[in-house]
């Protein structure tokens, strides 16, 4: 293992594919032996130095997807089919112990939702870093660990005094940034951030976002997968956005396309719920999506959004809808052709304007 990780940044100009997922399906098995397919044939691709955002309402499988991407499954989550390829290496065929030892932490890192509560209150921050390094066979003495950690902390804008503090001495935003710094100490190729800022106020949130962007720019992480339901945030952080609904991808495109020109009716409704303090907001009516997502124990056979869709047609409920590719990496899952959808949206916009 290299003992000299370049903690002041890596130049990532090559466009390698960092993470590729092909038709990944995972399921939860309940105590009554029922299978719940929370991630259903999801394919995605993240290039070096790029970021991918995943949006969707609660209960549509965003967090399960994040867990599934790590390739490390524990009950009640189980792997069913599909491939996860991290930097050219297929990890879906590896044994769980090998994944824990050689993938998690140094290839894929994960920041869960309440990450800042994960710190043991009786240990100093430097101890957590020692733990991470030791778990991945970096046996360094205390001074070397301290040197390494403080170099990284300085790069990401955290004062080095933090290392000698206990978690209770730090504020919420500081704790969150510390957790992120610990997660990237081994310079992972993929960082999965699951709602890293939802428990913070706007000022600390901005710091976390800046930190993540900084990590990506300096090349300390190879790529970023960012999960949240706050669309304005996603728009500002990520290059590409994927919208999930009931375990499936329903829309995929660049951030600009997904926010300003969504194609799938669900994505359209989602974008209608954006609240930003800018001129023009007060004239727009917020769209609330009626109903709730379907129960994934027995999902509808046709389009999963059909029950709540404004543009539903009789054939929607009959056939299962494939993800339709329309060029430049854009895709959406709806049986209505692109042109007709756009016409319908235009018509609705005209009606609302009157």
């Amino acid at each position: 293992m290299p003992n000299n990780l370049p903690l002041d940044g890596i130049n990532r100009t090559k466009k390698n594919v960092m993470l590729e997922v092909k038709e990944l399906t995972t399921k939860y098995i309940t105590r009554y032996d029922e299978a719940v397919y929370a991630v259903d044939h999801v394919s995605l691709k993240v290039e070096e130095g790029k970021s991918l955002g995943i949006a969707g309402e609660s209960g549509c499988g965003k967090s399960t997807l994040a867990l599934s991407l790590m390739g490390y499954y524990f009950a009640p989550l189980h792997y069913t089919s599909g491939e996860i390829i991290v930097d050219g290496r297929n990890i879906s065929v590896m044994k769980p112990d090998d994944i824990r030892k050689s993938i998690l932490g140094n290839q894929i890192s994960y920041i869960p939702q309440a990450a800042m509560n994960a710190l043991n209150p009786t240990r100093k921050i430097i101890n957590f870093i020692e733990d991470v390094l030791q778990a991945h066979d970096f046996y360094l003495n205390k001074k070397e660990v301290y040197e390494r950690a403080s170099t990284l902390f300085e790069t990401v804008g955290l004062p080095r005094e933090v290392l000698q503090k206990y978690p209770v001495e730090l504020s919420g935003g500081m704790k969150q940034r510390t957790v992120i710094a610990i997660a990237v100490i081994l310079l992972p190729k993929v960082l999965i951030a699951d709602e890293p800022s939802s428990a913070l106020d706007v000022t600390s949130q901005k710091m976390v976002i800046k930190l993540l962007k900084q990590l990506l720019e300096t090349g300390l992480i190879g790529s970023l997968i960012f999960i949240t339901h706050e669309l304005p945030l996603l728009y500002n952080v990520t290059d590409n956005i994927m919208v999930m609904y009931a375990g499936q991808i329903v829309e995929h495109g660049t951030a600009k396309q997904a926010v300003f020109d969504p194609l799938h009716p669900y994505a359209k409704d989602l974008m209608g719920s954006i609240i930003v303090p800018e001129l023009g907001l007060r004239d727009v009516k917020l769209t609330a999506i009626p109903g709730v997502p379907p129960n994934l124990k027995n999902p509808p056979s046709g389009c999963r959004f059909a029950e709540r869709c404004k543009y539903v047609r009789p054939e929607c409920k009959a056939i299962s809808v494939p993800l339709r590719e329309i060029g430049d990496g854009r895709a959406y899952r709806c049986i209505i052709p692109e042109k007709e959808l756009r016409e319908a949206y235009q018509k609705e916009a005209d009606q609302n304007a009157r």
Partner: protein
Amino acid sequence: MPDEKNIILSGRGLTKVFGFGRQKTLAVDHVDFDFYAGEVVSIVGESGSGKTTLARMLLGLISVTEGDIYFLGKKRDISSNKKKQEYWKNIQAIFQDPFSSYNTFHKVDAVLLDCIRMRGGGKLPRDKKVEMMAEACSFVNLKFDELTNKYPFELSGGQMQRLMIARIFLLKPKILLADEPTSMIDACSRATILDMLMQLRNEIGMTVIFITHDIGLAYYVSDNVFIMEHGKIVESGPPDEVILHPKEAYTRRLLNDVPKIYEEWDLSTVTYPS
């Protein structure tokens, strides 16, 4: 003392001090405000700016250190339990965390029956009560038949928050104090909750006081915005003035921290505290 007729709630020199001696914290610092009947006001500030303390004082949950609160032109009197209950018929609240807003041992219908009793409907026949509860539930898109035998913890966060609105529907207070009602639920249910609150306001004509750190939300819903910093109100006025043309540096900073989609979001202004 405020003399205008349609002022419903106002404060003069309202102050709250926590602790004493060296530990003294000035949470709310000589705040003056007037809330007019039927309007939606927002109190916006960072965490630690004293907005929740102000809300708790308005509700009468904590004592006031200095200054006065005037309710309907008269000085508020909550010196006895009876007077307090009378006051709470007029002012009600929705809190941030729906999971800890309910008594875990009371079923959903007990929660709603309590509201009917509070409005003086305790002696009504059972089927009349059920009808009222069903009406309140259907207002917030919940099915009363499915809820009757459930405990609050069996509901989802959005459902709980909606049940809270159903309570308000039954109680019909003059003032509703909503303390970050949408910060724990996701962006899609947020629009639903806001819609319902606004619909309810139009129906029973109450005043809504929003406490929030989301300046976008304040801009969207309110007729009047108050910006709080370190226990003081630094700026107030209609949202088009305060939020689109802020005068104070603090308001500008707060606005800058919210992600934008039509304009460039400037990340270079962020400085990490050391």
